[in-house]
């Protein structure tokens, strides 16, 4: 069994993510601090909440920091806000991000309905461990007001077309980020979760 932890910022539905992981045979703990005696094979940063409070909940209540917990050994899946936190900063807040990816998070153009909410298709541009078996143009569910703007576009492995191209999946070493919600994206999303768990089990 793969042991993974979901970090709970205390801001909404993580039950669906937990259920989706358990359906793919993972052992799931919900943690609110990195001070854990148990060793985990993977970490998930869920996609509900606001940037500043979420960053503070990660930074302020653990003796062990995020970087020491992960140590570049544990795969991390950041979903939506979780992915946005990988970057250096976000227009949603004032706090510094986790800074594992270079770049910033910016507001979507205001000529579209915000929050951007609904199903869009993925344009897969690169091979990625978490996109194994996923077909180009697969449908996934987005709900967000901000988008990533990485300094290095090579980390973008899939995008979505909103009129402008929005990074949908980013991958750098053991950090995986999805702007959409795999746990809300039907069978396609479930396959991505399975792929992530396979990375964790290695």
């Amino acid at each position, binding site marked *: 069994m793969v042991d993974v932890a979901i970090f709970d910022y205390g*801001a*909404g*539905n993580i*039950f*669906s993510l937990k*259920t*989706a992981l358990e359906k793919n045979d993972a052992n799931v703990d919900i943690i609110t601090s990195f001070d854990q005696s148990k060793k985990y094979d993977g970490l998930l940063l869920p996609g*509900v*909440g*606001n940037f500043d409070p979420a960053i503070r909940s990660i930074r302020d209540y653990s003796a062990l920091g995020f970087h020491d917990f992960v140590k570049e050994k544990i795969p991390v899946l950041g979903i939506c*806000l979780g992915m946005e936190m990988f970057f250096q900063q976000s227009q949603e807040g004032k706090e510094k991000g986790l800074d594992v990816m270079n770049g910033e998070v910016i507001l979507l153009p*205001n000529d579209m*309905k*915000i*929050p*951007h*909410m*609904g*199903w*869009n*298709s993925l344009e897969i541009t690169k091979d990625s461990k978490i996109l194994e078996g996923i077909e180009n*143009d697969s*449908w996934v*569910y*987005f*709900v*967000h*007001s901000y988008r990533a703007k990485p300094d290095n576009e090579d980390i973008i492995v899939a995008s979505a*077309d*909103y*009129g402008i191209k929005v990074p949908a999946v980013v991958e750098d070493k053991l950090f995986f980020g999805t702007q959409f*919600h795999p*746990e*809300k*994206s*039907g*069978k396609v*999303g*479930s396959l991505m979760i399975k792929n992530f768990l396979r990375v964790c089990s290695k």
Partner: protein
Amino acid sequence: MVLTKRIIPCLDVANGRVVKGLNFESIKDAGDPVQLAEKYSNEGADELVFLDITASSEQRETIKSLVKKIAEVIDIPFTVGGGVKSLQHARDILLNGADKVAINTGAVKNPEVITELMELFGKQCVVVAIDSRRNYNIEKGKNIFSENGKQFWFEVFIYGGKKGTGLDVIDWSKKIEELGAGEILLTSIDRDGTKDGYDILLTNEIVHAVGIPVIASGGCGKPEDMIDVFKNTEVNAALAASIFHYETHSVNRVKELIQENNIPVRY
């Protein structure tokens, strides 16, 4: 591909069963909520809305466990509403597996709760449900429309469509957007249960009044009604209940028909 239009089956639940009424009244049984939710999710529904139409305080624990059971069997977004008045109540619902909370009477009675919810859970969790009915008593300061030679304005109704508030639906929509709502679930009481089609006039007005997504609801009797509302308004989603409940049309089939009419849907 642009963002697709969302097709949302709605489960109106009373005493643990899915029910369907006409103009918010005369209710009839339509099945088990967990079974229907799973069926719709597997058939390609884009989201689900679950409304507890009894919404009494004694039922809160029952609803919590029902929400959890539904969240366990579906893998699409899920909105829960009905009698939500407090932050604590909303939190209970979200922590049991709902992605969004719909708030209606509670928002009219205490508009600050919209802002509080938004600050705690984010805009995307906060759906304000608005029940609208034409009022033919013309009042100063309202947005006046006319149809078949009669003048009227759209009034916000609460308590399951039973009580008028004197609020103009267009003004109220703008207000809740300012307060932090992330989406509007717009139900036309005039059309609800009639199967005469969505309220195109009302829907158009609200879509243009706000910058947040709008879900059209009330009056859908056949797939063509969905095609009609997507062709004639820029609404983001269409909600329906009875056309799905009684096996008249599967979600798949409805989406196929919509797509044949060149409206982008996930299929």
